[in-house]
Protein backbone atom coordinates (compact mmCIF):
# COMPACT_ATOMS: atom_id res chain seq x y z
CA UNK A 1 0.00 0.00 0.00
CA UNK A 2 2.76 2.44 1.02
CA UNK A 3 4.86 1.42 -1.96
CA UNK A 4 1.90 1.91 -4.27
CA UNK A 5 1.24 5.31 -2.75
CA UNK A 6 4.87 6.38 -3.15
CA UNK A 7 4.87 5.13 -6.75
CA UNK A 8 1.71 7.03 -7.63
CA UNK A 9 2.98 10.16 -5.84
CA UNK A 10 6.25 9.97 -7.76
CA UNK A 11 4.45 9.43 -11.06
CA UNK A 12 2.14 12.33 -10.36
CA UNK A 13 5.05 14.61 -9.41
CA UNK A 14 6.71 13.78 -12.72
CA UNK A 15 3.44 14.65 -14.43
CA UNK A 16 3.47 18.00 -12.64
CA UNK A 17 6.61 18.97 -14.49
CA UNK A 18 4.62 18.78 -17.68
CA UNK A 19 1.31 20.54 -18.10
CA UNK A 20 -0.85 19.49 -15.14
CA UNK A 21 -4.33 18.18 -15.56
CA UNK A 22 -6.95 16.70 -13.26
CA UNK A 23 -6.59 13.17 -12.04
CA UNK A 24 -9.50 10.80 -11.49
CA UNK A 25 -8.04 7.57 -10.25
CA UNK A 26 -8.06 6.59 -6.60
CA UNK A 27 -4.92 5.40 -4.83
CA UNK A 28 -7.09 3.16 -2.77
CA UNK A 29 -10.81 2.58 -2.59
CA UNK A 30 -12.88 0.46 -0.24
CA UNK A 31 -16.59 -0.02 -0.79
CA UNK A 32 -18.47 -1.66 2.07
CA UNK A 33 -22.08 -2.76 2.05
CA UNK A 34 -23.92 -1.05 4.85
CA UNK A 35 -27.29 -1.89 6.30
CA UNK A 36 -27.99 1.31 8.18
CA UNK A 37 -31.04 3.43 8.69
CA UNK A 38 -29.95 6.97 9.44
CA UNK A 39 -32.27 9.13 11.55
CA UNK A 40 -30.22 12.20 12.42
CA UNK A 41 -27.08 14.07 11.52
CA UNK A 42 -25.19 16.79 13.31
CA UNK A 43 -22.83 19.49 12.03
CA UNK A 44 -20.17 20.69 14.44
CA UNK A 45 -18.32 23.88 13.57
CA UNK A 46 -14.67 24.30 14.44
CA UNK A 47 -12.91 27.64 14.13
CA UNK A 48 -9.13 27.96 14.15
CA UNK A 49 -6.87 31.00 14.27
CA UNK A 50 -3.28 31.10 13.05
CA UNK A 51 -1.07 33.96 14.19
CA UNK A 52 2.60 34.24 13.41
CA UNK A 53 4.50 37.11 14.90
CA UNK A 54 7.86 38.14 16.26
CA UNK A 55 9.25 41.47 17.39
CA UNK A 56 11.46 41.84 14.31
CA UNK A 57 8.66 41.17 11.80
CA UNK A 58 6.75 44.20 10.57
CA UNK A 59 3.01 43.76 10.12
CA UNK A 60 0.47 41.23 11.32
CA UNK A 61 -0.15 37.77 9.98
CA UNK A 62 -3.45 36.51 11.28
CA UNK A 63 -5.90 34.14 9.61
CA UNK A 64 -9.10 32.63 10.96
CA UNK A 65 -10.85 29.76 9.21
CA UNK A 66 -13.78 27.52 10.03
CA UNK A 67 -15.35 24.35 8.70
CA UNK A 68 -17.93 21.77 9.76
CA UNK A 69 -17.46 18.15 10.78
CA UNK A 70 -20.37 15.74 10.70
CA UNK A 71 -21.75 12.95 12.84
CA UNK A 72 -24.78 10.79 12.25
CA UNK A 73 -26.99 8.46 14.26
CA UNK A 74 -28.33 5.23 12.83
CA UNK A 75 -29.67 1.81 13.62
CA UNK A 76 -28.13 -1.31 12.16
CA UNK A 77 -30.96 -2.90 10.19
CA UNK A 78 -29.16 -6.24 9.99
CA UNK A 79 -29.61 -6.51 13.77
CA UNK A 80 -33.40 -6.29 13.44
CA UNK A 81 -34.76 -9.83 13.91
CA UNK A 82 -38.27 -11.05 13.00
CA UNK A 83 -39.01 -11.67 16.70
CA UNK A 84 -38.36 -7.97 17.38
CA UNK A 85 -41.68 -7.15 15.72
CA UNK A 86 -44.74 -8.70 17.39
CA UNK A 87 -48.17 -8.10 15.90
CA UNK A 88 -51.36 -8.39 17.92
CA UNK A 89 -54.05 -8.52 15.25
CA UNK A 90 -56.91 -8.60 17.77
CA UNK A 91 -55.79 -5.46 19.53
CA UNK A 92 -54.51 -3.87 16.33
CA UNK A 93 -51.14 -3.18 17.91
CA UNK A 94 -47.55 -3.99 17.14
CA UNK A 95 -44.63 -4.01 19.53
CA UNK A 96 -41.33 -3.15 17.91
CA UNK A 97 -37.94 -3.39 19.57
CA UNK A 98 -35.42 -1.60 17.39
CA UNK A 99 -31.65 -2.15 17.52
CA UNK A 100 -29.77 0.46 19.59
CA UNK A 101 -29.02 3.84 18.05
CA UNK A 102 -25.34 4.15 17.18
CA UNK A 103 -23.39 7.27 16.29
CA UNK A 104 -20.39 7.78 14.04
CA UNK A 105 -18.26 10.57 12.66
CA UNK A 106 -18.80 10.68 8.92
CA UNK A 107 -16.29 13.30 7.89
CA UNK A 108 -15.63 16.99 7.51
CA UNK A 109 -16.08 19.69 4.91
CA UNK A 110 -13.49 19.66 2.19
CA UNK A 111 -13.63 23.44 1.85
CA UNK A 112 -12.54 26.00 4.44
CA UNK A 113 -14.51 29.16 5.20
CA UNK A 114 -12.41 32.27 5.49
CA UNK A 115 -13.63 34.13 8.57
CA UNK A 116 -10.87 36.71 8.78
CA UNK A 117 -7.44 37.47 7.35
CA UNK A 118 -5.00 40.23 8.16
CA UNK A 119 -1.71 39.77 6.35
CA UNK A 120 0.61 42.81 6.49
CA UNK A 121 2.23 44.14 3.31
CA UNK A 122 5.64 42.85 4.33
CA UNK A 123 4.35 39.46 5.49
CA UNK A 124 3.93 36.38 3.32
CA UNK A 125 0.52 34.95 2.41
CA UNK A 126 -0.53 31.69 3.99
CA UNK A 127 0.16 28.68 1.84
CA UNK A 128 -1.82 25.48 1.39
CA UNK A 129 0.42 23.52 3.74
CA UNK A 130 -0.22 25.99 6.55
CA UNK A 131 -3.96 25.77 5.97
CA UNK A 132 -3.70 21.97 6.02
CA UNK A 133 -1.83 22.28 9.33
CA UNK A 134 -4.61 24.47 10.75
CA UNK A 135 -7.22 21.91 9.71
CA UNK A 136 -5.17 19.10 11.18
CA UNK A 137 -5.00 20.86 14.56
CA UNK A 138 -8.72 21.64 14.51
CA UNK A 139 -9.48 18.04 13.57
CA UNK A 140 -7.41 16.64 16.43
CA UNK A 141 -9.29 18.93 18.80
CA UNK A 142 -12.64 17.83 17.30
CA UNK A 143 -11.85 14.14 17.74
CA UNK A 144 -10.78 14.71 21.34
CA UNK A 145 -13.99 16.61 22.07
CA UNK A 146 -16.20 13.94 20.56
CA UNK A 147 -14.37 11.31 22.58
CA UNK A 148 -14.43 13.20 25.87
CA UNK A 149 -17.67 15.12 25.69
CA UNK A 150 -20.68 12.76 25.64
CA UNK A 151 -23.03 15.68 25.02
CA UNK A 152 -22.64 15.53 21.23
CA UNK A 153 -23.52 11.84 21.08
CA UNK A 154 -26.32 12.19 23.63
CA UNK A 155 -28.00 15.02 21.75
CA UNK A 156 -27.70 13.18 18.45
CA UNK A 157 -28.92 9.87 19.86
CA UNK A 158 -31.96 11.52 21.45
CA UNK A 159 -32.90 13.22 18.18
CA UNK A 160 -32.51 9.96 16.26
CA UNK A 161 -34.63 8.00 18.76
CA UNK A 162 -37.40 10.56 18.54
CA UNK A 163 -37.35 10.49 14.77
CA UNK A 164 -37.21 6.68 14.57
CA UNK A 165 -40.20 6.42 16.92
CA UNK A 166 -42.23 8.85 14.86
CA UNK A 167 -41.28 7.22 11.58
CA UNK A 168 -42.14 3.66 12.59
CA UNK A 169 -45.35 4.76 14.32
CA UNK A 170 -46.47 6.46 11.11
CA UNK A 171 -45.41 3.50 8.99
CA UNK A 172 -47.35 0.97 11.04
CA UNK A 173 -50.29 3.32 11.41
CA UNK A 174 -50.60 3.41 7.61
CA UNK A 175 -50.87 -0.36 7.81
CA UNK A 176 -53.65 -0.17 10.44
CA UNK A 177 -51.59 -0.83 13.58
CA UNK A 178 -50.80 1.23 16.62
CA UNK A 179 -47.12 0.77 17.26
CA UNK A 180 -45.21 0.77 20.52
CA UNK A 181 -41.58 1.41 19.73
CA UNK A 182 -38.70 0.60 22.02
CA UNK A 183 -34.94 0.24 21.63
CA UNK A 184 -32.58 -2.53 22.59
CA UNK A 185 -30.03 -1.41 25.19
Amino acid at each position, binding site marked *: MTLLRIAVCAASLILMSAC*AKRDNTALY*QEIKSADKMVFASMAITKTAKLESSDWYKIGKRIAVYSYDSYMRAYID*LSALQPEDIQFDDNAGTVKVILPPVRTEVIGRDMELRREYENIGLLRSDLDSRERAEIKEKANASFRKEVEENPEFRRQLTETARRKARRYFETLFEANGYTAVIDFKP
Partner: protein
Amino acid sequence: MIKRIKLILIAVVLLAAVAAGLYFYFSTPKKTIDVSEGRVSRIEEMVRLCAVDIYSEVPVLDTIDNKVMFAVQKQKGSVLFDIENMQVDAGGDTVRVTLPPEIIDLYEATEDNSWEVIDTKAVGPMAMLRSDKFTVEEENAVKANIKRNSRRLLYRNGTVKRARADGAQMLRTLLETVYDRPVLVTDPTPDGAHFSEYR
Protein backbone atom coordinates in the same frame (compact mmCIF):
# COMPACT_ATOMS: atom_id res chain seq x y z
CA MET B 1 47.70 50.47 16.67
CA ILE B 2 44.51 52.31 17.71
CA LYS B 3 43.52 52.57 14.06
CA ARG B 4 43.93 48.81 13.69
CA ILE B 5 41.76 48.11 16.74
CA LYS B 6 39.10 50.46 15.36
CA LEU B 7 39.10 48.59 12.03
CA ILE B 8 38.77 45.23 13.77
CA LEU B 9 35.90 46.54 15.89
CA ILE B 10 34.09 47.88 12.83
CA ALA B 11 34.57 44.56 11.04
CA VAL B 12 33.22 42.65 14.07
CA VAL B 13 30.19 44.93 14.34
CA LEU B 14 29.52 44.62 10.61
CA LEU B 15 29.81 40.84 10.74
CA ALA B 16 27.49 40.69 13.75
CA ALA B 17 24.96 42.90 11.95
CA VAL B 18 25.07 40.72 8.83
CA ALA B 19 24.74 37.53 10.91
CA ALA B 20 21.79 38.98 12.84
CA GLY B 21 20.14 40.10 9.58
CA LEU B 22 20.55 36.64 8.06
CA TYR B 23 19.26 35.00 11.22
CA PHE B 24 16.12 37.13 11.33
CA TYR B 25 15.56 36.80 7.59
CA PHE B 26 15.68 33.01 7.59
CA SER B 27 14.28 32.28 11.03
CA THR B 28 10.65 31.15 11.23
CA PRO B 29 8.55 33.50 13.30
CA LYS B 30 6.67 32.15 16.26
CA LYS B 31 3.47 30.57 14.99
CA THR B 32 0.48 29.75 17.16
CA ILE B 33 -2.71 27.97 16.19
CA ASP B 34 -5.67 28.36 18.52
CA VAL B 35 -8.72 26.18 18.03
CA SER B 36 -12.09 27.08 19.48
CA GLU B 37 -14.40 24.56 21.09
CA GLY B 38 -16.72 22.72 18.74
CA ARG B 39 -20.16 24.25 18.39
CA VAL B 40 -23.23 22.33 17.21
CA SER B 41 -24.38 24.37 14.25
CA ARG B 42 -27.10 22.09 12.91
CA ILE B 43 -29.02 18.95 13.80
CA GLU B 44 -31.07 17.45 11.03
CA GLU B 45 -33.70 14.73 11.31
CA MET B 46 -34.01 12.32 8.42
CA VAL B 47 -34.95 8.81 7.42
CA ARG B 48 -32.33 7.53 5.03
CA LEU B 49 -31.21 4.07 4.09
CA CYS B 50 -27.46 3.84 3.85
CA ALA B 51 -26.60 1.10 1.38
CA VAL B 52 -22.89 1.61 0.90
CA ASP B 53 -20.02 3.20 2.84
CA ILE B 54 -17.01 4.41 0.89
CA TYR B 55 -13.45 5.05 1.98
CA SER B 56 -10.82 6.17 -0.49
CA GLU B 57 -7.52 7.92 -0.90
CA VAL B 58 -7.21 10.04 -3.99
CA PRO B 59 -4.24 11.82 -5.54
CA VAL B 60 -5.12 15.39 -6.42
CA LEU B 61 -3.42 17.05 -9.35
CA ASP B 62 -5.12 20.20 -10.46
CA THR B 63 -4.40 23.55 -12.04
CA ILE B 64 -6.22 26.70 -11.01
CA ASP B 65 -5.20 30.15 -12.28
CA ASN B 66 -1.87 28.90 -13.62
CA LYS B 67 -0.99 27.29 -10.31
CA VAL B 68 -0.56 23.57 -9.92
CA MET B 69 -1.29 21.64 -6.76
CA PHE B 70 -0.44 18.08 -5.95
CA ALA B 71 -2.00 16.63 -2.80
CA VAL B 72 -3.41 13.43 -1.38
CA GLN B 73 -6.86 13.34 0.18
CA LYS B 74 -8.56 10.69 2.27
CA GLN B 75 -12.30 10.62 1.70
CA LYS B 76 -15.29 9.08 3.42
CA GLY B 77 -18.74 8.85 1.98
CA SER B 78 -22.01 6.99 1.69
CA VAL B 79 -24.76 6.32 -0.80
CA LEU B 80 -28.14 6.86 0.81
CA PHE B 81 -31.83 6.88 -0.08
CA ASP B 82 -34.35 9.27 1.40
CA ILE B 83 -37.25 6.97 2.25
CA GLU B 84 -39.20 9.40 4.38
CA ASN B 85 -41.06 11.03 1.50
CA MET B 86 -41.18 7.93 -0.67
CA GLN B 87 -44.56 7.00 -2.15
CA VAL B 88 -45.77 3.60 -0.97
CA ASP B 89 -48.68 1.92 -2.74
CA ALA B 90 -49.99 -0.55 -0.18
CA GLY B 91 -53.47 -0.88 -1.68
CA GLY B 92 -53.21 -4.33 -3.27
CA ASP B 93 -51.88 -7.74 -2.28
CA THR B 94 -48.42 -6.56 -3.18
CA VAL B 95 -46.90 -3.39 -1.76
CA ARG B 96 -45.29 -1.34 -4.53
CA VAL B 97 -42.58 1.26 -4.08
CA THR B 98 -40.16 3.09 -6.35
CA LEU B 99 -36.55 3.42 -5.22
CA PRO B 100 -35.84 7.17 -4.78
CA PRO B 101 -32.83 8.95 -6.31
CA GLU B 102 -29.55 8.25 -4.55
CA ILE B 103 -27.88 10.82 -2.31
CA ILE B 104 -24.10 10.72 -2.36
CA ASP B 105 -22.51 12.18 0.75
CA LEU B 106 -18.82 12.77 0.26
CA TYR B 107 -16.50 14.25 2.89
CA GLU B 108 -12.87 14.60 3.75
CA ALA B 109 -12.00 11.91 6.31
CA THR B 110 -11.17 12.84 9.89
CA GLU B 111 -8.13 10.62 10.23
CA ASP B 112 -4.66 12.11 10.61
CA ASN B 113 -3.36 13.81 7.48
CA SER B 114 -6.55 13.45 5.51
CA TRP B 115 -5.55 16.49 3.48
CA GLU B 116 -1.86 16.40 2.65
CA VAL B 117 -0.44 19.03 0.32
CA ILE B 118 2.70 17.63 -1.32
CA ASP B 119 3.64 20.54 -3.58
CA THR B 120 2.41 23.65 -5.37
CA LYS B 121 3.99 25.55 -8.22
CA ALA B 122 3.27 28.34 -10.65
CA VAL B 123 3.15 27.46 -14.35
CA GLY B 124 2.74 29.34 -17.60
CA PRO B 125 4.28 32.62 -18.70
CA MET B 126 6.46 34.42 -16.11
CA ALA B 127 5.95 31.48 -13.74
CA MET B 128 9.25 32.20 -12.00
CA LEU B 129 8.05 35.66 -11.03
CA ARG B 130 4.62 34.66 -9.75
CA SER B 131 3.58 33.24 -6.41
CA ASP B 132 2.77 29.53 -6.20
CA LYS B 133 0.53 30.07 -3.17
CA PHE B 134 -3.14 29.17 -3.50
CA THR B 135 -5.73 31.47 -1.97
CA VAL B 136 -8.55 29.90 0.07
CA GLU B 137 -10.89 30.41 -2.86
CA GLU B 138 -8.50 28.68 -5.28
CA GLU B 139 -8.00 25.83 -2.84
CA ASN B 140 -11.77 25.48 -2.45
CA ALA B 141 -12.09 25.36 -6.24
CA VAL B 142 -9.61 22.46 -6.26
CA LYS B 143 -11.71 20.72 -3.59
CA ALA B 144 -14.89 21.23 -5.61
CA ASN B 145 -13.17 19.56 -8.57
CA ILE B 146 -12.09 16.66 -6.36
CA LYS B 147 -15.66 16.14 -5.20
CA ARG B 148 -16.98 16.19 -8.75
CA ASN B 149 -14.29 13.76 -9.96
CA SER B 150 -14.90 11.39 -7.06
CA ARG B 151 -18.64 11.36 -7.71
CA ARG B 152 -17.99 10.69 -11.39
CA LEU B 153 -15.76 7.76 -10.41
CA LEU B 154 -18.52 6.29 -8.20
CA TYR B 155 -20.90 6.33 -11.16
CA ARG B 156 -18.34 5.04 -13.65
CA ASN B 157 -16.99 2.17 -11.54
CA GLY B 158 -20.45 0.83 -10.72
CA THR B 159 -20.51 1.76 -7.02
CA VAL B 160 -23.78 3.67 -7.39
CA LYS B 161 -25.30 0.80 -9.38
CA ARG B 162 -24.34 -1.63 -6.63
CA ALA B 163 -25.67 0.74 -3.96
CA ARG B 164 -29.03 0.98 -5.74
CA ALA B 165 -29.30 -2.80 -6.00
CA ASP B 166 -28.42 -3.15 -2.30
CA GLY B 167 -30.79 -0.31 -1.38
CA ALA B 168 -33.69 -1.96 -3.24
CA GLN B 169 -33.03 -5.22 -1.41
CA MET B 170 -32.84 -3.48 2.00
CA LEU B 171 -36.03 -1.59 1.33
CA ARG B 172 -37.86 -4.74 0.29
CA THR B 173 -36.77 -6.62 3.42
CA LEU B 174 -37.74 -3.71 5.68
CA LEU B 175 -41.17 -3.15 4.14
CA GLU B 176 -41.99 -6.86 4.03
CA THR B 177 -41.36 -6.93 7.77
CA VAL B 178 -43.61 -3.93 8.32
CA TYR B 179 -46.44 -4.85 5.94
CA ASP B 180 -46.21 -8.61 6.25
CA ARG B 181 -46.94 -8.81 2.52
CA PRO B 182 -44.83 -9.19 -0.64
CA VAL B 183 -43.12 -5.96 -1.63
CA LEU B 184 -42.10 -4.99 -5.15
CA VAL B 185 -39.37 -2.35 -5.39
CA THR B 186 -39.05 -0.76 -8.81
CA ASP B 187 -35.82 0.98 -9.78
CA PRO B 188 -36.34 3.37 -12.71
CA THR B 189 -32.61 4.26 -12.88
CA PRO B 190 -30.48 1.24 -11.95
CA ASP B 191 -27.24 2.98 -13.06
CA GLY B 192 -28.02 5.98 -10.89
CA ALA B 193 -30.47 8.86 -11.02
CA HIS B 194 -27.65 11.29 -11.90
CA PHE B 195 -25.65 8.93 -14.10
CA SER B 196 -25.97 11.11 -17.21
CA GLU B 197 -24.60 14.17 -15.37
CA TYR B 198 -21.29 12.40 -14.80
CA ARG B 199 -20.48 11.09 -18.27
